[in-house]
């Protein structure tokens, strides 16, 4: 009996070391940094005095904090809604077999293959107000007469960033949802066809209920990925113009690596960790529920 438990430990220990070293340590370090006056001098002297809740007070009292929180939520909700709706439509579309369907489906993965910093540079030129391809096309079609200030107007920039992030996220959604659709037994569809169910009825009565576990996974993972998303915004607008696309991750990045206020940067990312953690728990609960179902 004892030998068995020793073997069990031998199997667990490597992954335990890995988790402690690469997951627990950074998180704990980050939590501690949030309570410290951690500046550039700290790197040289090694001294980071504890300041209690000072960093949290400073970041929350900042006039930009609540607009930043609002932007973060709009960014997450907008991105996830768009990615999911388009994702499920496209996944359903590819369920039907037609010539070149596999080729097209693999082409859909392209946004995933491009480094985000490359694709955002492309989008930036597409969305240029004066000479960008999008405005040029819309103008030549007579839809608009003056260029849309995609990335230069504070009232539109957040929407533009969301659009690009939806594009970035579609491959993930399609891939997982398509996989989920494959798991639904074909007989059910045949039975419903015999019963005379239409396409909409089939979707709501068969596809949707059976796809629910996959949907939970896609949305919750999507929320967590989008919450901490940094590169899309940095590549497109760097949080501008005039803070209109500033989110908690970008603000944390700027505090840490431009202002060198590492304590305040850590405080912001800790706030983010707490929000992401809530979603992570929801995810774990829903996946457990789907197992017991």
């Amino acid at each position, binding site marked *: 009996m004892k030998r068995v438990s020793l073997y069990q430990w031998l199997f667990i220990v490597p992954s335990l070391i890995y988790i402690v070293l690469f997951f627990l340590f950074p998180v704990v370090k980050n939590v501690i940094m949030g309570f410290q006056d951690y500046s*550039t001098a700290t*790197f040289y002297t090694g001294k980071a005095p504890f300041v209690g809740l000072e960093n949290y007070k400073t970041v929350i009292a900042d006039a930009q904090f609540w607009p930043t929180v609002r932007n973060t939520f709009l960014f997450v909700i907008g991105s996830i809604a768009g990615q999911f709706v388009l994702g499920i439509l496209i996944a359903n579309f590819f369920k039907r077999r037609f010539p070149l369907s596999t080729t097209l489906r693999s082409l859909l993965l392209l946004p995933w293959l491009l480094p985000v910093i490359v694709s955002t540079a492309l989008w930036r030129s597409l969305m240029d107000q004066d000479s960008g391809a999008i405005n040029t096309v819309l103008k030549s079609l007579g839809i608009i007469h003056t260029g849309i200030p995609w990335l230069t107007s504070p009232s539109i920039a957040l929407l533009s960033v969301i659009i690009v992030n939806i594009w970035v996220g579609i491959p993930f959604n399609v891939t997982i949802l398509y996989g989920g659709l494959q798991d639904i037994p074909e007989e059910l569809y045949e039975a419903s066809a015999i019963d005379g169910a239409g396409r909409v009825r089939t979707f709501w009565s068969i596809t949707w209920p059976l796809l629910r576990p996959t949907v939970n996974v896609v949305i919750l993972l999507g929320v967590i990925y989008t919450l901490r998303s940094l590169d899309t915004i940095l590549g497109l607008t760097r949080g*501008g*113009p*005039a*803070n209109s696309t500033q989110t908690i991750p970008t603000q944390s990045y700027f505090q840490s690596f431009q*202002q060198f206020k590492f304590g305040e940067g850590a405080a912001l990312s800790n706030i983010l960790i707490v929000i992401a953690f809530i979603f992570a728990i929801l995810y774990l609960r829903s996946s457990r529920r789907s197992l017991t179902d």
Partner: protein
Amino acid sequence: MSNTQSQLTRRVFAIGTAAALGIGLAGCASSGTPTASSAPVTSISVADYYTDQPAKSIIGDALTKCGTEAGVTIQREAIPSADLVSKTLQKLSSKTMPDLQMLDNPDLPTFASTGALTPVTDAGVTTDNIGKSVLSIGTYEKKVYGIAPTVGTLVLFYNTDIFDKAGLTVPTTWDELKAAAKTLTKGSTYGVAFPAKNGAEGTYAFMPLLWSAGGSEDKLDSAAAQSALQLAVDLVKSGDASKSVVQWGNSDVGDQFLAGKAAMGIMSAGQAAKLDKAGTVKYKMATIPVPAAGDASVAPLGGEVWTLPNTGNTARQAKAGKVLECLKSDDTQLSLAIARGLVTANPALDAKYLAKKPALTAYVDQVRGGRSRAGILGEGWVDVSTKIYKAVQSAITGQASVSAALATAAA
């Protein structure tokens, strides 16, 4: 391979000496009398951010030449500019700083204030052939921590074809600038372009307007600061500069100017390299316009300073000091400035420089009247720099009035 090996030996050596000599070593380092090490120093490590050609090999060649003179080989690491500060901070905490470290000049106070750098004069480097304003970009609390062999700044580029066709001369005052921009805005060409990006480049381009108006970074709600920001806002509002300026850095403005989409461009003089290479646009440089005739055109000095980190190894530091002494010698200054399209740190070399580059008179004038960004605020500059570009963005996009945007920045 040899690089990692020597780093390892260095680290072992550093730990050994640190343990043996303890705190006494730090005292020696700042007293400026290098202790003779038992093993002769045959190489020094250098870090900079010149990852792109041609700067990479121009600087590399200068370092190699100076290393040979000092009797050491150079182990150089070029770090992408975006990562330089964070990488250097990591090295600071792991005590693996190189012997010679390049920093962008606004970051110097950040590092000098930590105590991680040795004043270069303590390592025997002379500063008599460095102009006063250039010396100031490497100075923190009255001590010189870094030396820039060459400097650059922003100037006004203007498209001579467009100007000739319109029969205009280059504007020297703000009113002339506005009028010229209005006349030259036609079709897909804007009168003027300037960087107003959400980042340090936006601040960099605002400084000439602020300083030439008599404003200062420590009093951002002054009338002078308001008039400077109002100029930028007016140019965009009138449609004589693109609304996209809030997305542009220097290189974007260079692209617009090159594509003929801007008749004038206020941008880093370094953009000339791109224009010359393409050769499709005829241009000249002028000093940046000032509020009224007779005002001085004051621009921020750009450029990288070479510093001597406090590694605790005085023998290596002395060698690094020798290499730096050679890097900032008149000869190296001149060859670097000519090769890279920059201006020498020594004003006495201007005549020689202009003999080779006669078209750059305005550029040299702009540099000589230049000022250090972190000169007044020291390590407080990084914070204010962020506030300035945010104010510029809020006002240009109409999120806030000029006075409200600057009041926020000054708070």
